[in-house]
């Protein structure tokens, strides 16, 4: 599965969220999208999944061109998304079991009992979590359920929108490890959005730096870590990630 985005533009009510963005992701790759708020990184994910209106350019997943907001059944199985806010990504009135059953029911996948238990095992949640409601789960546990829900249809591509930024540091480490493990086991393609350079360089091999709806630079994570970046903005982000120091403050 490859993702090819060419000159993509997205506008909301006249506001240009994405301005002629081009990205290419290869099969099995882990690709990062970094930027600050308003950079359009989340909008890019939403455009791929059909949640944001495209006003120009093309998106192709595995050679198949995507038009408008409609996506085929096959696409809906092959591409899944994990959202940022664990407190908003699960239906508050449905048990974990029901929420894991839903994607199986929609796609007509049988053998649901086994698959649900397997999904819970895979994300490290015991079977005792199966019939709990979201309000009985911690943030980390909810995010695991969200990941289980995404994985239960056996997708090939996972779009991750800041999956750990709402979690505590220790929980973040656990979830990142889980994501890595899952990716390795199923040979998934990741597109991960984050504002945290540490997380992105840890999880991704290549990344695109975005600012104000445009791609500033695309580079390998190793190059970013080694300080071999081209753009000043990327350098600025690097420096800011290191924490506060009197010399670092501009002005």
């Amino acid at each position, binding site marked *: 599965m490859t993702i090819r985005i060419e000159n993509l533009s997205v506008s909301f009510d006249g506001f240009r969220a994405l301005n002629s963005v081009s990205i290419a992701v290869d099969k099995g790759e882990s690709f990062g999208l970094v930027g600050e708020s308003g950079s359009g990184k989340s909008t890019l994910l939403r455009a791929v999944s059909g949640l944001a209106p495209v006003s120009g350019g093309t998106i192709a997943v595995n050679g198949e061109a995507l038009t408008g907001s409609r996506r085929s059944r096959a696409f809906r199985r092959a591409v899944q998304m994990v959202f940022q806010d664990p407190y908003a990504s699960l239906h508050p009135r449905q048990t974990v079991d029901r929420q894991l059953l839903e994607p199986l029911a929609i796609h007509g996948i049988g053998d649901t009992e086994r698959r649900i238990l397997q999904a819970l095992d895979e994300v490290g949640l015991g079977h005792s979590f199966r019939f709990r409601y979201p309000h009985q789960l911690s943030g980390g546990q909810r995010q695991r359920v969200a990941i289980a829900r995404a994985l239960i249809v056996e997708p090939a591509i996972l779009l991750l929108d800041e999956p750990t930024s709402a979690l505590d540091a*220790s929980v973040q*480490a656990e979830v990142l490890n889980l994501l890595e493990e899952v990716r390795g086991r199923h040979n998934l393609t990741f597109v991960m959005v984050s504002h945290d350079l540490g997380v992105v360089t840890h999880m991704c091999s290549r990344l695109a730096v975005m600012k104000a709806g445009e791609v500033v630079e695309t580079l390998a994570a190793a190059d970013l870590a080694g300080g071999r970046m081209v753009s000043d903005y990327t350098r600025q982000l690097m420096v800011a990630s290191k924490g506060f120091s009197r010399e*670092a403050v501009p002005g």
Partner: protein
Amino acid sequence: MKPLLTVRNLSVTYPTRTGIVEAVRGISFELGRERLGIVGESGSGKSQTGRAIMGLTPPPGIVRADTLSFSGIDLTQAGPAAWRDMRGSRMAMILQDPKFSLNPVMTIGRQITETLRRHENVTKREARRRALEMLEAVQITDPERVFGLYPFEVSGGMGQRAMIAMMLVCGPELLIADEPTSALDVTVQLEVLGILDRLVRDNGMGLIFISHDLRLVSSFCDRVLVMYAGRIVEELATADLSSAKHPYTQGLLDCTPRIGESRHPLPVLERQKEWAA
């Protein structure tokens, strides 16, 4: 040197339907004219500590302490009027998200002058002048224009700077900042921290910086308190952070992915029951 703030055996409890929740369980520390960071994850009690010191614990929370004194004043005995006099003029608090902590139906300038006129006897013109001065001090380039803007019309970083201006306009001695930069972009974070750094230094204030980000706190503060499950598990100077003794602190330091390091999988915090004892 007499400490600015003395806290001995502070506890904050909430009676709930299912039992008593102890948010803060008997912590003690002192603060001089320095920068103290309080670090912890969610549920550690760090925010509750900040609010207890400001007298802002929401009901039905109960605050108890053997000693809670600020600049010689016994805070446990302070009545509502005394608190109102102190807050804003002698002790101030900055919160996380200016979207939620600034009054959305009042202009920024008005909110700053309101604080000023509540505590000091100044004319409207004088108040306006000082508010504009303060907006300049927080590096807002066009203070006249921002004075008349509403909070929803400015960006997050600017809103946070406006909040700082509002809180510091009366020149308080103690500033508590509860996750002041968590809702901001990294580059903006640096700017805001730089402003805080300068103002704290220039005015000789005591600062309590509450955050979940241990690395950020250690780069900004002189001393750090690490909280877990309502208790302080470690207290050390930030220079000594790498030689932290408590496993929780070490775990927190280790588990964040850092640029340039390749640790797969990331070390995970194994919580021990004894830490919450």
